[in-house]
């Protein structure tokens, strides 16, 4: 049985750990609330751009833009959005595992012929894919602490540059879509070429009586990159909100575990103390008896 002193040291160290996890949980919950707000407030912008494009693109007969054109897929770029930091449960592990699964299932041939490029966003994804010797196209790390729209801007500019330069013919993004505190879903979305703008029911809008300034073509051309940027921006925000939610849950579980451990340690501490006292009393009584005889 452990000595009293050993148990006391363990109790103290676990108490400290508990303090840290509790603080991390609180910080995560504050950050999470903010992130959740950002997710909701980014939606109107994305929806409006989408709406305008939906109205416009179908009206342009014979409009071909490199970003819309479907090419023969020779090379694929996969953008994987993870977190910059750990201590958020299985968030990063799950994401990377899913990304690797998707690669093995759908892009195995590309991987074999080294035609699969990766664009990790977030330090954890970068570390993993760099170590495992995947072909990296670019990376974007340490952005989540101060996430701003210009981060999305940079990422998209880099992707568009590579895409128009024909370094790859298809771009997909893999990220955590935020559902609720306890639920996030890892999704794979096609990013480029831009999927056709049709309504969910398969129809497409036709609004032809707009006045355009300058031409409809130029407006669509200026909107397409911005549409892509808001898409990445949303993915970043959703991933960040999921990360904070995951951290909150993980740290909450850690705090509970620490408390459970403290209860059982306190019990064995008291038991050991009791045993010690009993032995001492026995010794004293035994000594007194011996003197009496």
């Amino acid at each position: 049985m452990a000595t009293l002193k050993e148990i006391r040291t363990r109790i103290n160290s676990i108490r400290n750990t508990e303090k840290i996890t509790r603080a991390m949980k609180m910080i995560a919950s504050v950050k999470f609330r903010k992130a959740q707000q950002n997710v909701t407030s980014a939606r109107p912008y994305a929806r409006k751009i989408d709406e305008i494009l939906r109205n416009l693109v179908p009206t342009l007969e014979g409009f071909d833009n490199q970003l819309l054109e479907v090419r023969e897929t020779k090379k694929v770029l996969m953008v994987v959005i993870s977190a910059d930091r750990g201590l958020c449960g299985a968030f990063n592990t799950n994401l990377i595992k899913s990304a690797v699964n998707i690669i093995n299932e759908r892009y195995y041939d590309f991987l074999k012929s080294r035609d699969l490029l990766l664009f990790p966003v977030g330090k954890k994804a970068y570390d993993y894919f760099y170590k495992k010797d995947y072909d990296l196209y670019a990376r974007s790390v340490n952005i989540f602490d101060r996430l701003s729209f210009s981060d999305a801007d940079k990422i998209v500019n880099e992707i568009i540059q590579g895409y128009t330069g024909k370094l790859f013919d298809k771009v997909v993004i893999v990220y955590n879509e935020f559902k609720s505190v306890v639920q996030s879903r890892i999704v794979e979305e096609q990013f480029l070429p831009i999927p056709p703008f049709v309504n969910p029911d398969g129809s497409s809008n036709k609004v032809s009586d707009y006045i355009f300034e300058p031409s409809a073509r130029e407006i669509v051309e200026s909107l397409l990159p911005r549409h892509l940027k808001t898409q990445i921006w949303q993915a970043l925000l959703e991933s960040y909100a999921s990360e904070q939610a995951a951290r909150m849950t993980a740290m909450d579980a850690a705090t509970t575990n620490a408390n459970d451990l403290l209860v059982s340690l306190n019990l064995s501490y008291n038991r050991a103390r009791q045993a010690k006292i009993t032995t001492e009393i026995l010794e004293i009584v035994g000594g007194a008896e011996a003197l009496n005889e």
Partner: protein
Amino acid sequence: MTEGLIDLEIVTPGKVIFKGKVRSFTAPGSEGSFQILPRHAPFISTIIPGVVKLIPEEGNPRKFATAGGTVEVHSNKIIMLAEEIYPAEEININEAESEILEAEKILNSKEPGLDIAGIITKLKTAKAKLKAVNS
């Protein structure tokens, strides 16, 4: 008097900057500044860096500095999409001036590989900020 009003929404990726009814809306279009009054025909235009003015239903006219975007008018509703837009009340003149100086410095340095278009937009936006405050 609902006839003399038009709905306006100014949206950025971060938040909705303005939402409400206005009497008029003026913006710097890529082919010249334009004004939109209630019951305007469906219209789409790109916006260049400059000053956006609007007259709300009640209260004083308001001014904003923008780095550009898109305006759509459709069924008596204006939607302005902008990546950056700053209400004149929130603009810091000193900051705007130092932004102008910095942008000019970068432009003059003529380093290779510069994102000239991006810097010119920045410069114009900073100038628009000053104009939004001073005019």
